[in-house]
């Protein structure tokens, strides 16, 4: 067991030394693998960040209740009181028509146009926040229907439709990331396989001699498998670095945008699990690519 370990350690270091002897060729392969790994990783980081950024919106389940245009303030207050007593309602805020108009005048930039109006076109409105325990879609739908039946209520609007649409789109993109990752993984297998094939071709004599003195297929294959693992690991490191650089370059402008929207949002990198996944994924793909090619090619090389 100790010998086995010793042998493998020796081959491991030996194959690293060999790659080191051809730094340019090795670097090219590593960079290509790095980019192939970095693209899906970047997409993944993007989706993760969008999810985090939009996470706050999922709780934005406030229901807007508009009173009939001719409903009086008294009616609106009564309606608010009735709704507030419901078990599935946490909070009801009354927005008086005049206050709403004032707000609109201040922020919309249509001040002059509004001044031209004789009457206030806005109705009284209530903002209903469901109780935390009743925020699932079934309860919220039921609540919406109930609210519609309250005296004087004209329109009930649930502002969550676009949130679910957004989440659905995000899901599609996430699935796309998986597909892209799969395609790029296939690409990496091909890149590693082709590099190993060239390696094998360059070392044909050595392989023949080794087989002549009794080296088995597994024995001559071993250094190539380690080559593949090294390529993959180095590619994983490169990919991690590319993602880190991309996140670093984007984090300041993103923070500025977030600041403009009054958010504390900060761009997140791949993190430790992401790094581990890149390294492990790279190593596994490198190993598999070289395994497939080396097993096939080395079988063909027989001493003459």
């Amino acid at each position: 067991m100790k010998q086995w370990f010793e042998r493998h350690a020796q081959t491991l270091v030996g194959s690293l030394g060999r790659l080191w002897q051809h730094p340019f060729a090795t670097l090219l392969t590593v960079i290509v693998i790095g980019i192939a790994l970095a693209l899906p990783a970047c997409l993944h980081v993007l989706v993760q960040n969008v999810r985090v950024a939009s996470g706050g919106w999922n709780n934005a389940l406030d229901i807007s209740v508009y009173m009939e245009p001719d409903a009086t303030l008294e009616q609106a207050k009564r309606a608010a009181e009735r709704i507030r007593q419901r078990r599935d309602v946490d909070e009801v805020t009354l927005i008086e028509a005049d206050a709403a108009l004032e707000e609109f005048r201040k922020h919309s930039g249509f001040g002059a146009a509004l001044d031209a109006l004789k009457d206030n076109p806005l109705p009284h409105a209530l903002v209903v926040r469901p109780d935390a325990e009743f925020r699932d879609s079934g309860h919220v739908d039921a609540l919406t229907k109930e609210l519609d039946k309250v005296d004087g209520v004209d329109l009930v609007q649930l502002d969550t439709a676009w949130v679910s649409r957004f989440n659905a789109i995000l899901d599609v993109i996430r699935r796309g990331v998986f597909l892209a990752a799969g395609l790029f993984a296939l690409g990496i297998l091909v890149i590693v396989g082709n590099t190993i094939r060239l390696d094998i071709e360059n070392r044909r004599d050595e392989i023949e001699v080794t087989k002549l003195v009794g080296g088995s297929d597994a024995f001559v294959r071993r250094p190539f498998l380690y080559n593949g693992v090294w390529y993959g690991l180095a590619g994983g490191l490169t990919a991690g670095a590319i993602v880190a650089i991309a996140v670093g370059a984007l984090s300041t402008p993103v923070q500025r945008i977030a600041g403009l929207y009054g958010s504390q949002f900060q761009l997140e990198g791949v993190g430790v699990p992401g790094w581990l996944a890149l390294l492990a994924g790279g190593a596994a793909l490198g190993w598999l690519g070289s395994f497939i090619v080396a097993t096939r090619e080395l079988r063909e090389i027989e001493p003459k």
Partner: protein
Amino acid sequence: MIRFDHVSKRYPNGREAVSDLSLAIGRGEMVFLTGHSGAGKSTLLKLIALIERPSRGTLVVNGQNTAAVRRSKIPAFRRQIGVVFQDHKLLMDRPVYDNVGLPLVIAGVPEKEIQKRVRASLDQVGLLGRERTRPIELSTGEQQRVGIARAIIAKPALLIADEPTGNLDPDLAIEVMNIFKRFNDVGVTVLIASHDVHLIERYAVRRVMLAQGRVVDGVDAPPTPAAEITTGAPEVPADALRPTATNAPLVLPDIRLD
């Protein structure tokens, strides 16, 4: 040790290199295989090392019918045979140490043991102290001796050599041949293909002559005891070369052939 029984070998191009050949070589025997180039000497050796398979007939090597050796068992089969090639087949970009130690690395022998045995093996061919040299820096004769050191390091009971003196001048050729002779003296079966009639006539060992893939003359060893021809090189005690089953290190006197 080796038994050919009506063996034929026909290559894909239709040439029959070995035709209905029968030949037996006993354990501990030393045999020269002679004949013109193209007579089938190399093919015969390749059949023994399972580099080629017989088209017909049976070949038994070291008690194993070669037809029964599956592809996956060939490496293990080859490890019991030491093979010396005319073109050395060394790894030119690796030090002598790596070349000679390769069979033991394959066999999974511990590094310490390999170091010991590489030294012992190089000592036997007179190249002790050249472990770090690359074969490309060595002369042809020295390269051939590295090849021999590699062939004997795993202490095989059978040593086969294809034109081991083909590229050497007469003095070097005698030196190399003497190395083989000494191995035979300690019980190793040795089979050497050579077309150098003048050289092999100096040794009193059995000669098998091939022509067109057949044995045309299977002269037995002359009755006079085989005498080693000296080139002024010091002798290696025969005991030191005896193949051992144990892992006991070989203790060898520090000698040089060059």
